[in-house]
């Protein structure tokens, strides 16, 4: 089943930087899709169409089709100007390149999204805190100090807290924009292992911070170059047997 359907999507910013040209792809549910390529290729812009964070950017033109498919098969038009973006963002979680913990306690970070949505039930919040921390492989390290400020955590712990924070809302789709770019290899492994478990129940779109990570984690992969989706394939195929010369050049390190 497809989770996101993108057809003939075009995007331009007012200042003329990074754009998307005629993007067509289908992101499969319950799998990890990696979008990779050199900086400025449009990967992040595409990601921010999926949770409408591009509303904060100065977008000039946005055209084409982008649909989010619900568990019941219903579709949501992601380009609809009247879309309830608040509700959308509760269904689509995001983790950023830098760990950005909110100036709250560890627990406060995790319950933030639910509280904004009006959840008051302490038992449910407690249960969510424990579940999401376990899913992000952080529970054992912080379970005894949930009331501490989140900034007291190490960088790797902070990033796993950010992952747990988006999981707390039980999103259908999780967007990760180079989530391990600032992390050490051990923490990177932990995050990647978490993602492999999470894909059973969630759909994951990952912008990897290296080609190696793209090859390791991707069930499906798209190669982006200067706003174009150059090649799209099942992960292993794309990295072992690229069909397009430009993809091959990039993954063999001839440019990028």
């Amino acid at each position, binding site marked *: 089943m497809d989770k996101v359907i993108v057809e003939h999507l075009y995007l331009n910013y007012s200042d003329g930087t990074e754009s998307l040209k005629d993007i067509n792809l289908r992101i499969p549910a319950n799998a990890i899709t990696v979008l990779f390529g050199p900086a400025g290729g449009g990967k992040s812009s595409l990601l921010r169409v999926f949770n409408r964070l591009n509303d904060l950017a100065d977008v000039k033109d946005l055209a084409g089709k982008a649909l989010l498919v619900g568990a019941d098969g219903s579709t949501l038009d992601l380009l609809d100007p009247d879309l309830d973006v608040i509700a959308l963002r509760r269904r689509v979680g995001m983790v950023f390149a830098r760990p*950005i913990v909110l*100036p709250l306690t560890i627990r406060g970070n995790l319950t933030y999204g639910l509280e904004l949505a009006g959840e008051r039930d302490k038992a449910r919040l407690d249960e969510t805190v424990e579940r999401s921390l376990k899913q992000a492989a952080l529970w054992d390290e912080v379970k005894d100090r949930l009331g501490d*400020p989140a900034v007291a955590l190490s960088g790797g712990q902070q990033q796993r807290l950010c992952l747990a924070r988006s999981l707390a809302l039980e999103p259908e789709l999780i967007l990760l924009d180079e989530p391990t770019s600032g992390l050490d290899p051990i923490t990177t492994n932990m995050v990647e292992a978490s993602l492999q478990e999470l894909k059973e129940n969630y759909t994951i779109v990952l912008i990897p911070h290296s080609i190696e990570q793209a090859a390791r984690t991707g069930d499906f992969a798209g190669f982006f170059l200067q706003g174009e989706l150059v090649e799209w394939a099942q992960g292993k195929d794309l990295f072992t047997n690229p069909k397009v010369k430009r993809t091959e050049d990039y993954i063999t390190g001839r440019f990028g």
Partner: protein
Amino acid sequence: MKAAGASIQKRQTAQQLGYALVTLVAVITILPILFIMGYIFIRGLPALSWEFISGFPTQGLKAGGILPSILGTVVLTFVTTLIAVPIGIAAAIYLSEYAADNRWTKIIRIAIINLAGIPSVVYGLFGLGAFVIFLRLGVSILAGALTLGIMTLPVIISASEEALRAVPQSFRVVSISLGGTPWQTIRRIVLPQALSGIMTGVVLGLERAAGETAPILFTTAVIYQPNLPDSLLSPTMALPYHLYTVATQVPGMPEAIQYATALVLLVFVLGLNALATFIRARARAHRQW
């Protein structure tokens, strides 16, 4: 070798000279404030007594205490706070969080800067025209607080906007990405983080308002009042105006009373200043970014 040695010698001399110069300039900046404070303390302290602080003036202000003036200034400052702080913070939130960067906000900003540059006596005359006469509030605490409030607004708005902008943009993006509305983001993340900076600006603005004479001259202050004001529509005595009166308007005024009045006003204003410094220091120690 010898030339190189001489050159190092020369540079060292220049360095010492430069250091001495900046130290001298720093001392010159501190000296006047130390002198003013020391002088007023020494001259005013002998006349300062419990009776002076808690009593009413007698014998045409030449004896007794200054309680009505102290209370008047406290009440004026308090009412000014109630008027200026909500409006100032709301304006800062609008400018920092909601308004786009366009011609309209540019005009607002220029207006704020100009508001800060208007001489205080002009505020006083404006208050007389607008509040005392046009709104028929009469010479009253309310008219004075409104005048002081308008005068304080630019300080509060600028300081608050700066404090709000200092909160990292990334917090806002994260909050929005978790399904937060702009207002939820402001109320739960941005405002609490900016609060100490806002408080500092507020106190500094009020400190200026508390010490001003010209704005209350035509709007609030009276030379003498036998009873304490009983409503916000009554006029009141106030410290800066009282100081002006005892210093220049009453012949044969004992010097000790003049200095003691100045001392009380100075302590009041410096107290507010110390409060602002304390809030800022505490907030810096607790800041999480």
